[in-house]
């Protein structure tokens, strides 16, 4: 019997396995364990196992680079590849072409992973979101210039905000190289001095959003020096570009509306400012005029005319007081006089006469005794009213 070497036997077994169609181009279901990516070569080594057995697997760098997600230990996958022998160790293993996560589609899993990764890096942090400038001068629109999106954006801005320049950068939004094209478009718009950039795609095109779900686009959006509004036009799922953008709009038209104010609101603002300016100036005038009036009043109070007037007023006052004083004095005198006259009147002999008494005169001399009378004397009698002459016939 011929003696053969270890290498020969391993090579022989390898050739047998390679020629067995049952184990070439197979799909194997299993759970990934011991997953290792060789950092220098890029080759990937792991073990596939089920409940009973395990199978070594290797994925070379060129195949591994095509993977859209990073397999992890514990992941249920379906691996496609072929069984071969690693001659050095005399071990058979699965040479892997592709790995598909079981359950979710590969793309979905990759997207989830990328989202998680970028989220961890803080790309989606709201703290990084910048406000949209209140009055942008130049608005970038990175999209397909043959699509509806750019027309919508221009229509909205022409109507609402014709103050701006729209800088429309043509970009592939789907298909091969779309992500790179979108990235370059954003950078161009940024370099062109746009104050805000709308990145998106119009409706009506296919649902391929992959360009907006890439790491590169996320980074370019994140690193853009001016705010980015995403308008990918997909209601249900947020793309990575949406999450990284400073603002997300459901459609390009909505993005255009969010990117700038409406001109009518600007007219309104000017009106408000005009009214405010007017009001404050009028208030200043009022204040100044009040101050003037107060000062003027104080000044005129000190004017010579006013002093003369004040003195004259005081004089008039004094005069009036004097007049009243005199008037009262005279009144009092008059009163006293009339009182005295009344008293005098009550003492008047005529008053007595009116009560029935009479006055008797002899030779114009009033008599108060009969001593001076003799028989035959003529006397004059004065009554309260009227008088008479009489002759004395007797006396006692």
């Amino acid at each position: 019997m011929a003696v053969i070497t270890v290498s020969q036997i391993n090579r022989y077994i390898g050739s047998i396995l390679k020629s067995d169609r049952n184990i070439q181009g197979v799909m194997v279901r299993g759970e990934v364990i011991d997953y290792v990516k060789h950092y220098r070569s890029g080759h990937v080594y792991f073990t596939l196992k089920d409940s009973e057995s395990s199978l070594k697997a290797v994925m070379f760098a060129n195949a591994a680079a095509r993977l859209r997600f990073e397999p992890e230990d514990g992941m249920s996958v379906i691996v496609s590849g072929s069984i071969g022998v690693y001659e050095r160790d005399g071990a058979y293993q699965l040479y892997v072409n592709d790995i598909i996560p079981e359950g979710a589609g590969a793309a979905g899993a990759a997207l989830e992973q990328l989202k998680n990764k970028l989220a961890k890096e803080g790309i989606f942090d709201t703290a990084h979101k910048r406000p949209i400038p209140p009055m942008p001068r130049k608005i970038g629109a990175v999209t397909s210039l043959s699509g509806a999106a750019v027309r919508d954006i221009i229509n909205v801005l022409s109507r609402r905000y014709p103050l701006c320049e729209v800088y429309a950068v043509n970009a592939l939004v789907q298909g091969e190289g779309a992500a790179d094209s979108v990235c370059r478009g954003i950078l161009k718009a940024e370099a062109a001095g746009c104050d805000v950039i709308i990145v998106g795609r119009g409706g009506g095109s296919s649902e391929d959003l992959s360009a907006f779900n890439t790491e590169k686009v996320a980074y370019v959006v994140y690193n853009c020096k001016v705010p980015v509004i995403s308008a990918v036009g997909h209601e249900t799922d947020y793309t990575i570009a949406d999450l990284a953008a400073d603002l997300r709009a459901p459609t390009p038209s909505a993005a255009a509306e969010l990117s700038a104010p409406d001109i009518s609101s600007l007219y309104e603002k000017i009106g408000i400012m005009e009214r405010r300016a007017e009001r404050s100036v009028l208030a200043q005038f009022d204040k100044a005029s009040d101050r003037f009036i107060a000062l003027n009043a104080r000044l005129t109070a000190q004017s010579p005319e006013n002093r003369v007037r004040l003195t004259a007023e005081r004089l008039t006052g004094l005069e009036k007081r004097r007049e009243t004083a005199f008037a009262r004095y005279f009144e009092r005198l008059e009163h006293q006089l009339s009182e005295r006259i009344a008293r005098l009147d009550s003492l008047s002999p005529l008053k007595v006469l009116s009560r029935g008494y009479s006055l008797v005169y002899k030779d114009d001399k009033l008599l108060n005794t009969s001593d001076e009378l003799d028989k035959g004397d003529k006397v004059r009698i004065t009554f309260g009213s009227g008088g008479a002459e009489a002759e004395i016939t007797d006396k006692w």
Partner: protein
Amino acid sequence: MTKLGKIVAELEKGDIPLEKAVELYGEGVKLSAACRKQLDDAQIKITEDGGEAPSER
């Protein structure tokens, strides 16, 4: 517009002399007229940059 806002704020502080206020007000009126005119005359400008993706054109 920003300048107009600044002038209004300055006026509303109210601690400036009347002459200065009147002067500012005049400036504000001119500015607001200029702003209105700018809005009235605004004409959107479109610049197309199509170099990057000729296959789309």
